[in-house]
């Protein structure tokens, strides 16, 4: 079996996978684009090979080159991470055809779950409830979609068939918006996934987004590692995840977990995957989609179960049996993950690019930081804006929140604007503390305005600090003016001085 792994990704997830390989005693191969020469994953791997220019299309999406590098470096397996090639069944198949191991599900399962429409049809056949939509209708033309929309009812969502991460997704509140939003969804899906096909899905209001982590081995054992609450989103991008969900109890967890395992078995699932559900206010749950890969938010599950999901992925890919049975999985305590993005929460969350001058990460008990950057690293516009993931564990949810507050306050990132203040405001929000939030919370009931939660204002301290800084700046400015005090030019002065000393 393989003992050298190529990591076909970048950033924090590449680093995460390299760590698991190291701990298992595996040799590692990194691949990188021209923009990533100085990235952490390149430095941490045993070997590193250049893929091509910065745009993903010419580097991290070049499956052919990646397989070629795996062959040349004699890596026996490829771990795709998330994003890029992780959910491309053609890539998984090409890897297998090249005689290499793809650390992930079988190509057939990726294909079945990757096409959201096929996925919905497959799980429906296995008796799993789904959200009403245009599943099983195939790829529809604009006129057909516009005609079907009123039958599903508004509000609804346009979603990219090849989608994920909120890209190519649009929310439609009335029929008059259909044409425009359809165009922009297709345009975004085309540029993000190279596939402009979309489908419609009813938008459940006040719904929660709860997902189950699945692990499956080649012996047909399928277990779940409990749920992750991912309702805290902005424009369908997850920002914060926690496990367990404050919304569901043991009975519901067990029922949903069983349904999740059933859905995974329906496609003969192998390796790690995630079943996403929408749960309405009455605890009815619907299958949303399956992510056939490692998730960004997998660390919260690792913190509460103690299972190292990436190591388990590698073991399963080597043909081993899962080390755990369902009875072994116990959720202990509570974990929260905040995604730290280079974006400005005070300016419409616009991405912020630049060089990271200084990073002081939080440490101490119960704190984990997964990152792929370091001081001096440049945040470029080529890849997503995530700088790191900050994960805190506590014996109770309350302790996890208090610990996260403490860690966010310790975290210093200089050079770009970050959404740390956003997370601090969430941690202080009474609704969040009470677990009273759904997928619309950030957009509809949350504000960065400090008056909102009646927090004590420290405007006096802020005023003193600003005055001291302004004072320094004006003093520096006056020193610059003073420096040129000589009445002749410095060159002339040096000439005279030299002649004098002859």
């Amino acid at each position: 079996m393989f003992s050298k792994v190529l990591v076909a990704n970048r950033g924090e997830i590449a680093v995460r996978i390299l760590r698991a390989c190291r701990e298992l005693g595996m040799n590692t191969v990194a691949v990188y684009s021209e923009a990533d020469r100085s990235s952490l994953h390149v430095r941490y791997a045993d070997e590193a090979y250049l893929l091509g220019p910065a745009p993903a299309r010419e580097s991290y999406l070049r499956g052919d080159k990646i397989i070629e590098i795996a062959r040349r470096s004699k890596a026996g397996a490829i771990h795709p991470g998330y994003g890029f090639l992780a959910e491309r069944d053609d890539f998984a198949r090409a890897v297998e055809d090249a005689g290499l191991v793809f650390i992930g599900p079988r190509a057939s399962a990726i294909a079945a779950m990757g096409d959201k429409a096929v996925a919905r049809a497959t799980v429906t056949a296995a008796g799993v409830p789904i959200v009403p939509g245009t599943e099983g209708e195939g790829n529809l033309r604009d006129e057909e979609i516009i005609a079907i929309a009123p039958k599903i009812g508004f509000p609804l969502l346009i979603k990219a068939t090849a989608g994920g991460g909120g890209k190519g997704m649009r929310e439609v509140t009335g029929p008059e918006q259909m044409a425009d939003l359809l165009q922009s969804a297709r345009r975004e899906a085309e540029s993000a996934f190279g596939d402009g096909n979309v489908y419609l899905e009813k938008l459940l209001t006040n719904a929660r987004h709860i997902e189950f982590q699945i692990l499956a081995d080649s012996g047909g054992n399928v277990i779940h590692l409990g749920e992750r609450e991912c309702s805290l989103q902005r424009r369908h991008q997850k920002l914060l995840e926690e496990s367990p969900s404050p919304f569901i109890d043991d009975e519901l967890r067990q029922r949903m977990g069983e349904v999740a395992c059933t859905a995974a078995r329906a496609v003969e699932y192998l390796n790690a995957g995630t079943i996403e559900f929408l749960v309405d206010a009455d605890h009815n749950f619907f299958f949303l989609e399956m992510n056939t890969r490692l998730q960004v938010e997998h660390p919260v599950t690792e913190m509460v179960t103690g299972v190292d999901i990436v190591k388990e992925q590698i073991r399963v890919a080597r043909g081993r049996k899962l080390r755990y049975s369902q009875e072994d999985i116990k959720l202990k305590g509570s974990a929260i993950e905040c995604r730290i993005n280079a974006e400005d929460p005070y300016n419409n969350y616009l991405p912020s690019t630049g060089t990271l001058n200084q990073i002081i990460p939080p440490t101490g008990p119960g704190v984990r930081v997964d990152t792929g950057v370091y001081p001096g690293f440049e945040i470029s516009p080529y890849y997503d804006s995530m700088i790191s993931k900050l994960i805190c564990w506590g014996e109770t949810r309350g302790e996890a929140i208090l610990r996260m507050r403490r860690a966010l306050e310790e975290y210093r990132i200089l050079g770009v604007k970050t959404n740390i203040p956003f997370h601090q405001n969430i941690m202080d929000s009474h609704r969040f503390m009470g677990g009273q939030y759904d997928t619309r919370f950030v957009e509809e009931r949350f504000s960065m305005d400090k008056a909102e939660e009646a927090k004590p204002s420290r405007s006096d301290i802020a005023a003193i600090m600003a005055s001291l800084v302004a004072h320094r700046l004006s003093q520096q400015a006056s020193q610059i003016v003073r420096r040129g005090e000589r009445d002749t030019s410095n060159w002339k002065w040096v000439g005279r001085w030299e002649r004098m000393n002859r």
Partner: protein
Amino acid sequence: MRYITTVDGETFEVEINSESEITVGGRRLQVDFQSVAGQPVYSLILDGQSYEAYVYPSDQGLDVLLLGQLYHIAVEDERQRRLRQASGMQISPSGELHLKAPMPGLIVAIPVIEGQQVNQGQDLVILESMKMQNELKAPREGTVTRVRVKPGDSVEQNQILVTLV
């Protein structure tokens, strides 16, 4: 040196007596103020109370990010305040306004044309960066006088995209 410092509408008088002493609202306070590692993060010990904050220059003056809250602050010394009071009015909401690219990226669409009347909050440019499409909105109402880019253009940070009057 005496400063008149306005924080989101609230005014403070801060007098800097020396490196280690200030007077705020008639109270003398001991200060020890240092930048952390030469960065725009500052550590303040004020009569034994320890604070840390980011202080950035902004359009109006300084932004202070303290304990997860952002404060917009204008600092004026007395000379500046007199000058402003003498000139009477503040910046008016008319005049040329340049919409600049907040980050490098690719122009996806420009839903306005030259000569078009726009409202505050209306989309002017759609800029793709970091795989996200960002709608850049009009900061106030006005007329589009110039569109300096076209879809497909790559733009640098702070490049002027659209001009409003």
